[in-house]
């Protein structure tokens, strides 16, 4: 697992929603072309394979062979979550796996999974999971002793334990007291 700090949280540009062309409103539930979906899946796979790396929208759009604005919109329609938020779920998932399966210090896990600071990691982790990294580590290790999961392929197990970021973040935002500045990592969207 790389601990290189070059793999910092990317700064994702905010892509405003594209206004509909003159006289034509895009049908929001128009089915997406399977060939496009297959290319979007390729970008999602690339984030899965290296979630600790920076994934600005330009890089993802290039993988899918579409324009930046088209990519963000299409990805969200296809997978129900904006690409940057998807990346956060994968980082938290990866961190949770390392917390459960290793004795690596939490600082090391934060940098290895792509966060630029321990503070951002801890805040985002709590926002999403509702618990601190150390609490999750204790709980997961206690559970692992009770329920052996070694018959489930590791990748499938990880996906099953993936946090539901869509709900967690929007819940968090609803609960955000007025006048409080939200943390950058939980609100960056494209």
């Amino acid at each position, binding site marked *: 697992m790389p601990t290189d700090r070059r793999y910092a949280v990317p700064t994702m540009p905010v892509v405003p929603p594209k206004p509909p062309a003159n006289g034509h409103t895009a049908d929001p539930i128009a089915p997406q072309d399977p060939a496009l979906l297959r290319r979007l899946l390729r970008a999602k796979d690339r984030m899965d394979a290296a979630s600790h790396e920076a994934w600005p929208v330009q890089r993802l759009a290039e993988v899918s062979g579409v324009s930046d604005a088209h990519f963000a919109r299409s990805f969200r329609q296809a997978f129900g979550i904006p690409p940057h938020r998807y990346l956060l779920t994968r980082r938290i998932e990866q961190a949770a796996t390392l917390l459960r399966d290793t004795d690596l210090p939490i600082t090391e896990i934060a940098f290895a999974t792509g966060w630029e600071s321990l503070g951002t990691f801890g805040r985002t982790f709590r926002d999403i999971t509702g618990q601190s990294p150390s609490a999750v580590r204790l709980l997961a290790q206690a559970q692992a002793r009770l329920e052996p999961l070694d018959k489930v392929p*590791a990748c499938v197990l990880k996906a099953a334990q993936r946090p539901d970021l869509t709900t967690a973040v929007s819940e968090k935002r609803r609960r955000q007291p007025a006048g409080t500045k939200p943390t950058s990592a939980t609100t960056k969207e494209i």
Partner: protein
Amino acid sequence: MTKNQGIGVVGVYVDDQDEALAFYVGKLGFQVHTDVRNGPYRWLTVQHPDQPGFQLGLFRPGPPIHDEATAQALRAMVAKGAMPPLVLHVSDCRGAYARLRDLGVEFTQEPVDRYGNVDAGFRDPAGNGWKMIQLAAGGVQ
């Protein structure tokens, strides 16, 4: 070994059966078991050379089985990688990875050691995701 009971065919959906055939036979090294057509319908199954009792079906969503909207939904599911996980056991994951990668197979994960097993991930051209797993010696298959 002949067995009278057990799972005989499990299918995956693919958007292009010719492309799927070229992939599963030409790259993965499976063999064609059955390839018959009836109008637009094509029953196509392949087998792993070491597993003669099991056929993997490569089926295309569409008429006469599905209406167009259903076929479109199924094609979208496959292309989004939303179909169930598939697992291929191999004796040498790293060797198979190098060979298949050189054949142009789209890998989603390089070989990784996990508790003595080695696993990698790839997709077929349609989007079906496979895990390729080399079990630790004495591992339960």
